[in-house]
């Protein structure tokens, strides 16, 4: 294969959001040579869109908080389907990961005594989210980006000594010699393995030139984020095409929990061009309330039995909670996201929606204008600029938007190693299990940091363990990958004009949104699978115009394969799971079923045959058992609503925290 460049590293990190950058820092500090792949420019990853904050039980605002309480909230939010070890590590390590960001230069909002301020969020018992106004994701990405730069500077200083230091830190280290290098605007299209199936490298292209790039590396950390671009109404950017999910599948690994897709309750609904753009949960955490077209705070009608003891019954009590959380229950606007999204959906269906099919989210009658602008500056800006709405004077119109996939690569909780494929690791949204059936707001940024670091360390241990026996790419694999990547430039065999990739993408988004969206039914999901099968057959006929240099049509054509694969995972798993839990609501099976809690649905790829293109196989596997000391953190009565009788702890008197 001609026309390509090659690089050799110890570890290749695919993705430059919070998880990828934190993994890179960890792997570099372990002494590895690290390459970071950004699909976009450095510092533009989707993490930048995170608004509310980073959940960590530092206890700065309420000293009753602890990792145990955070663990408990996370399991409740995920309806007990979370991999318990992941939720445990996450709750234990999040505070350290946040404090560490301050040593990188992060500037969080402060408490009156000068510590990191923490805000309330849905499903979190105490104020827990470290934040910077409503632009916390930007602060996180910039902080990690600048830490990466500082590691590079430290290396330069070490390499060239005091002379360079006196010269003001000018770049003196050649890119190819650096132990840490960022490859911006590169897309990985395939992972490459050796004959035994172990990771040996990766294949991709540079967007700027369209030329191919090959990495030889014994470890790959996937940190590619989510799959939201398979849905029509989404808060996700163009990058979220399920690349890491699909790369892992094609390399032979497995995905879990793919039926669980989070629809954030509050996306913009008007004007149409901004439909789906996120409205942060902080609006509710800071006092905003949801009202229907009759002006009623409808969330009080939607508190499910399992949460009834934890949420206020009246508006008066809910309102008192903001000032006096010790003696009042929180308002139901702060239920976990899946509950709020379903409630909004029901109100709109019942004809109590707004003119544009949403509900009202109002902060203007709740807080003074200057406080709104101080606490929610980017929301103020966003609505003012894009919707002609001044949120200090008017209510916002909001509705559910596809926001996050709980499902992802099945990993070892401690090392982030992916199943079945030695040398493959995954962290952040692309990994599965941490959040169970529903993620709490604020738990994503902490997830990125905790498991990003663990993946970096895990990869370092793996690489050291290999010694000199580094897996090498199989012969011929590069040609196969190159031919696959160039296929969209082939004119259609029938001499016609070929399929437009944008058309197929739009059709897939409509199928997923309408048939595998927030509320699902067996017959609709079946229809979605038929539609996905039909789209799969059309993808080989996709043909793009122009040449290889920065050609978005070509890029989309290659991303389509990944989107179809992950969409099939979502639909097949959604069809099998005959219950409603978290981010999976079945109209035909409305209840939560504790027998189903014991099952994980595991997706793997099958080869297909001459008649059928490769597809997804879903198998049931048992969920991991929750350790007794972790079960002891809950009241038995609460456990009874999630677990089967034989899973409950033997000692009926044992009832731990939950006070």
């Amino acid at each position, binding site marked *: 294969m001609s026309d390509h460049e090659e690089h050799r590293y110890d570890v290749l990190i695919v993705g430059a959001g919070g998880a990828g950058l934190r993994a890179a820092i960890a792997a570099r500090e372990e002494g590895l040579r690290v390459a970071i792949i950004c699909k976009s420019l450095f510092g533009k990853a989707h993490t930048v869109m995170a608004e509310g904050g980073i959940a960590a039980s*530092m206890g700065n605002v309420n000293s009753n908080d602890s990792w145990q309480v955070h663990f408990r909230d996370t399991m409740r939010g995920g309806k007990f389907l979370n991999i318990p070890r992941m939720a445990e590590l996450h709750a234990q390590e999040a505070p350290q990961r946040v404090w560490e960001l301050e040593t990188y*230069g992060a500037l969080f909002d402060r408490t009156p*005594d000068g510590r990191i301020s923490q805000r309330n969020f849905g499903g979190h018992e105490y104020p827990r989210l470290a934040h910077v106004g409503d632009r916390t994701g930007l602060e996180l990405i910039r902080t990690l980006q600048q*830490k990466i730069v500082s590691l590079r500077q430290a290396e330069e200083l070490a390499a060239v000594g005091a002379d360079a*230091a006196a010269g003001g830190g000018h770049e003196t280290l050649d890119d190819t010699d650096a132990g840490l290098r960022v490859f911006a605007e590169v897309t990985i299209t395939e992972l490459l393995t050796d004959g035994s199936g172990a990771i040996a490298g990766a294949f991709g292209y540079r967007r700027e030139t369209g030329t191919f790039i090959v990495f030889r590396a014994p470890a790959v950390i996937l940190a590619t984020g989510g799959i939201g671009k398979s849905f029509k109404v989404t808060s996700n950017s163009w990058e979220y095409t399920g690349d890491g999910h699909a790369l892992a599948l094609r390399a032979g690994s497995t995905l879990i929990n793919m039926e669980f897709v989070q629809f954030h309750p509050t996306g913009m609904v008007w004007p149409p*061009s*901004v439909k789906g753009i996120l409205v942060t949960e902080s609006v509710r955490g800071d006092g905003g309330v949801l009202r229907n077209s009759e002006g009623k705070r409808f969330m009080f009608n939607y508190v499910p039995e399992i949460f009834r003891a934890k949420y206020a019954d009246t508006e008066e009590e809910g309102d008192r909670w903001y000032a006096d959380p010790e003696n009042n229950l929180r308002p139901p606007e702060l239920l976990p996201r899946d509950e709020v999204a379903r409630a909004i959906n029901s109100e709109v269906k019942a004809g109590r929606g707004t003119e544009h099919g949403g509900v009202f989210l109002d902060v203007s009658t709740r807080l003074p204008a200057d406080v709104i602008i101080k606490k929610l500056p980017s929301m103020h800006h966003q609505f003012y*600029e894009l919707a002609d709405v001044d949120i200090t004077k008017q209510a916002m119109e909001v509705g559910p938007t596809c926001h996050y996939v709980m499902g992802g690569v099945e990993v070892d909780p401690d090392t982030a190693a992916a199943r079945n494929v030695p040398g493959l690791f995954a962290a952040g949204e692309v990994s599965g299990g941490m959040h169970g059936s529903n993620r709490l707001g604020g738990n994503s940024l902490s997830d990125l940091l905790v498991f990003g670091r663990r993946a970096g360390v895990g990869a370092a241990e793996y690489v050291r363990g290999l010694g000199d026996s580094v897996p090498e790419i199989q012969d011929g694999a590069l040609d196969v990958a190159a031919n696959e990547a160039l296929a969209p430039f082939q004119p259609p065999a029938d001499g016609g004009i070929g399929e437009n990739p944008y058309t197929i993408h739009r059709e897939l988004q409509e199928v997923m949104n309408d048939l595998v969206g927030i509320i699902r039914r067996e017959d609709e999901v079946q229809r979605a699978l038929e539609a996905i099968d039909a789209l799969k057959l059309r993808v080989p006929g996709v043909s793009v115009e122009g040449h290889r240099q920065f*050609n978005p049509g070509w890029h989309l054509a290659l991303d389509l394969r990944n989107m179809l694969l992950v969409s099939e995972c979502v639909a097949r798993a959604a069809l099998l799971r005959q219950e409603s839990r978290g981010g999976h609501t079945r109209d035909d099976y409305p209840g939560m079923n504790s027998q189903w809690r014991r099952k994980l649905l595991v997706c793997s790829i099958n080869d297909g045959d001459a008649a059928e293109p490769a597809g997804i196989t879903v198998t049931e596997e048992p969920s991991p058992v929750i350790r007794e000391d972790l079960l002891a953190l809950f009241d038995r009565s609460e456990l009874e609503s999630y677990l089967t009788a034989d899973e409950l702890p033997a000692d009926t008197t044992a009832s731990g925290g939950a006070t």
Partner: protein
Amino acid sequence: MSRNAKFRVWRGDAAGGELHDYTVEVNEGEVVLDIIHRLQATQAGDLAVRWNCKAGKCGSCSAEINGRPRLLCMTRMSTFTDDEVITVTPMRSFPVIRDLVTDVSFNYQKARQIPAFAPPPDLAPGEYRMQQVDVERSQEFRKCIECFLCQNVCHVVRDHEENKTAFSGPRFFIRAAELDMHPLDARTDRREFAQAEQGIGMCNITKCCTEVCPEHIKITDNAIIPMKERVVDRKYDPLVWLGNKLFRRGND
């Protein structure tokens, strides 16, 4: 509610290019980026443009609309009259790669030249204490989304490619100011560095950067002017500065 609009979009690469005319559908509430996307999906599948968040938070879709540097995703079509021809061109101060995409690597090189935050050596993680009023000054600059529109409009480099070596530009003056005003940054030579290494002295305070900033950061008033003034206050001496840097090297 839909209408047709006339667009002229620059198409080409480093070797040259020209404006192409398109007639394209526009619907209520749309922004210029929506129209560019519609062109991609229906008339020009290979039209190159950068974008990510489509909500003014990532700073990817910077370009020039009727000659004015803007974010494509935050420029509403309702700001133009129905018969107005809308011309979209790439940022002028950076080399064109293709169509609306430019080579902004200049900015990443400048970013790597600024010494990173120096953590206070006597504080462990978790021990940092800062007052809100003190962090707010730096927080204003950390709102920067790195759209590089300020770099694009700055007179010092917009038509003077030769100044790029010695001049870091407004985006990196606010980075320097942010670190200078950080309550716990252990370095004390941020202002000297801005003067001696970043070329802040070349700025003649025309405030173009402040005017173009989509985050409304007061770049000139709150960052550049204080950094210039304070350097003067200190009667900057390059030899003293060099000595400080060498002396402080152990803390990096």
